[in-house]
């Protein structure tokens, strides 16, 4: 009986132990499920967060402005800006009465441009640049660009005509406040269509377009008043750009040019050629009109290596003009060579200087400093005088040299000062002429914000 009781007791004990083990097993299984579910839920949450991040529009603000873009970068809107506050101070300038020329020493808002650019539907880029610095707002750039590939792009609208090297350089990166005498002979912005591209990662750049046609050194209005168009093109080579020859990587050379027929004074001839100080050194006399073929040719090149930068171009502008029954083909030429050296050692480039140590006096950082120098000449065709221009008041040539100091506080802010001296050629009558009766000497300063 006792044995039976013991056996029964052992069975009860065994049963309760088995039940406990089964219960524990079940608890472990449930806990295992919970852990697995939590782990997977965490993975799903991470996947969802990653997916959401991929779909979230990207907003960036920095030295390159404000950029808002869709997650896939197919739609991007960028806001940039450029403000240039200049001073010009002229020395030894006397008018034909012996008085100091009035009105040319000035504080000047040279450029004040909000720059809107971006991309829509991945391959279509746009740019819109108004300028509020003049007496009235003007549209400088307004174009749409289709990018099939870097080597095949089409641009339509108002933009820089592909001829002059310094003209094509962005305003904020030029060595001096004002472009050289060579730029007097190349077109500025014009309205038209252009096929262009960078082949071989920029080893070859090409551009070919058809435009309304503008006079030397002039910007286009928003429409044209004559039927003839102008063709312009440019080829620029940087053959060593992608090689390991670092000393030659930023050697670039090429040629730009244009050809067209112009028969209108409204758009065909420049109102004036300007000095470095933006004063008139030459003007056609009343009644002179563009009267046919006009072509330009501009071999050009630059070389940048380390802190050293060198840029040069030569321009021929050949144009048929008429006055009454007289006509002539005038061949004007200009050239310039400019060089810079970054004293603080940063690399000089066609796209400016980026300080290694942006201005921060508290950290004893002072930005980058560059010295620059330039020499330029402009030669007006001798046949221009006296029928088409007044030799007493217009120079037949000019030679300008300039030196300057550029202080790059950071990527966006630059302060610079320069001195320029321009001498004039020709049979100028000091009693009739104002600007060109003596050499122009001018000191420029600029405070520039560009982002």
């Amino acid at each position, binding site marked *: 009986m006792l044995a039976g009781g013991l056996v029964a007791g052992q069975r009860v004990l065994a049963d309760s132990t088995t039940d406990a083990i089964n219960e524990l097993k079940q608890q472990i299984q449930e806990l295992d*499920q919970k852990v697995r*579910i939590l782990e997977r839920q965490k993975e*799903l949450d991470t996947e969802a967060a990653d997916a959401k991040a991929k779909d979230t529009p990207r907003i960036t603000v920095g030295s390159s402005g404000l950029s808002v873009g869709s997650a896939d970068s197919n739609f991007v809107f960028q806001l940039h800006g450029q403000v240039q506050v200049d001073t010009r101070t002229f020395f030894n300038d006397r008018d034909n009465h012996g008085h100091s020329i009035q009105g040319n020493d000035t504080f000047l808002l040279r450029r004040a441009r909000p720059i809107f650019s971006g991309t829509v539907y991945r391959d279509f880029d746009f740019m819109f640049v108004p300028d509020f610095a003049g007496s009235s707002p003007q549209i400088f750039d307004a174009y749409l660009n289709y990018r099939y590939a870097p080597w095949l792009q089409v641009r339509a609208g108002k933009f820089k005509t592909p001829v002059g090297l310094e003209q094509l350089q962005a305003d904020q990166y030029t060595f001096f406040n004002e472009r050289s005498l060579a730029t007097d002979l190349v077109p500025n912005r014009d309205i038209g269509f252009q096929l262009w591209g960078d082949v071989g990662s920029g080893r070859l750049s090409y551009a070919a377009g058809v435009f309304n046609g503008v006079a030397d050194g002039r910007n286009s209005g928003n429409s044209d008043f004559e039927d003839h168009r102008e063709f312009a093109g440019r080829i620029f080579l940087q053959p060593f750009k992608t090689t390991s020859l670092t000393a030659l990587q930023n050697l670039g050379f090429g040629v730009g040019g244009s050809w067209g027929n112009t028969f209108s004074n409204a758009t065909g001839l420049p109102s004036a050629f300007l000095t470095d100080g933006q004063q008139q050194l030459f003007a056609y006399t009343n009644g002179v009109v563009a009267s046919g073929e006009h072509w330009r040719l501009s071999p050009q090149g630059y070389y940048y290596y380390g802190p050293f930068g060198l840029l040069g171009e030569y321009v021929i502008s050949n144009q048929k003009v008429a006055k009454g029954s007289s006509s002539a083909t005038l061949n004007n030429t200009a050239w310039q060579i400019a060089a810079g050296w970054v004293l603080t050692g940063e690399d000089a480039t066609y796209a400016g200087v980026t300080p290694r140590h942006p201005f921060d006096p508290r950290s004893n950082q002072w930005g980058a400093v560059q010295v620059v120098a330039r020499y330029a000449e402009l030669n007006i065709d001798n046949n221009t005088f006296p029928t088409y221009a007044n030799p007493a008041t217009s120079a037949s040539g000019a030679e300008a040299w300039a030196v300057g100091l550029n202080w790059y506080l950071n990527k966006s802010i630059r302060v610079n000062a320069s001195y320029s001296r321009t001498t004039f050629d020709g049979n100028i009558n000091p009693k009739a002429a104002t600007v060109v009766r003596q050499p122009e000497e001018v000191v420029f300063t600029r405070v520039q914000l560009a982002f």
Partner: protein
Amino acid sequence: MKTFLKFFSLLIAALLMNSAYAKDITLLNVSYDPTRELYREVNTAFAREWKAKTGDTVSIQQSHGGSGKQARSVIDGLEADVVTLALAYDIDAIAEKGKLIAPDWQKRLPDNSTPYTSTIVFLVRKGNPKGIKDWDDLIKPGVKVVTPNPKTSGGARWNYLAAWGYALKKNNNDQAKAKDFVTRLFRNVPILESGARGATTTFVQRGIGDVLIAWENETLLSLKESGADKFELITPSVSILAEPPVAWVDKIAKRHGTEEVAKAYLNFLYSPEGQEIAAKNFYRPRAQAVAQKYADKFPKLALFTVDEVFGGWQKAQKTHFDNDGIFDQIQADNR
């Protein structure tokens, strides 16, 4: 002039000769989650047939994901020559929102453009430890159900509607009771995967859950690949006739110059060989002869269609799956 004519004639002859050469054609088939294996086999067979027929080499690329997400991708610019999705609503969306497919697309191919069908069944672990036999067992406390998210997965919408249709039949078409049933079912769903294949992986490989609600073809494939010693297929008493449709994407195929081959590709699915491949990959074939040949593979059960119970996909989508629809309400109730 003679020289020019000679040159011109040679040029034309060269162009004609060039056009007579065999072409290399690429198609993109944008499909839903579990069709990877099916279309891998279909693509090989079709390419072989097309090569024999025309001499052209056709290469078919596949893209897979949740059906709703795939449709969205096509609308957003994924250049699909053909779409083979989980449900007609997703192709309707491409036709309506993307304007890429003719509105009457479903009438262009036989059987409402669904060359094969499937249904919704259960996969449970070997031995069926939770004793699951029918839909009612899925709402019992403690049963963990794996099904994907109906907002992103076509398969999940079929699962949801199958459960809803069962509850309606059981409760004399009482919509409130059906909603309560499905609410309780989703209360037992611990995580929502975005696609049917993800849900299968979660159940089969990660060992999560007691029962997977899935396409019949997906469960049969899991049994084949993982072995019958690990899982069991449970056929409920009632389920839904799932009709995954196919269509060529008119605008894209036209732009790619692939319209002819895209149509031929989809028609191939209806051919005896295409139907055989579908059956071998556990899709129910439409062709009677093939269906009879593979009859023992597919359990018999009562099937209802979306049109019969829900008035079509447009209505079902709007009522149940659109934002603030019944599924959103169910999820809110279960939080």
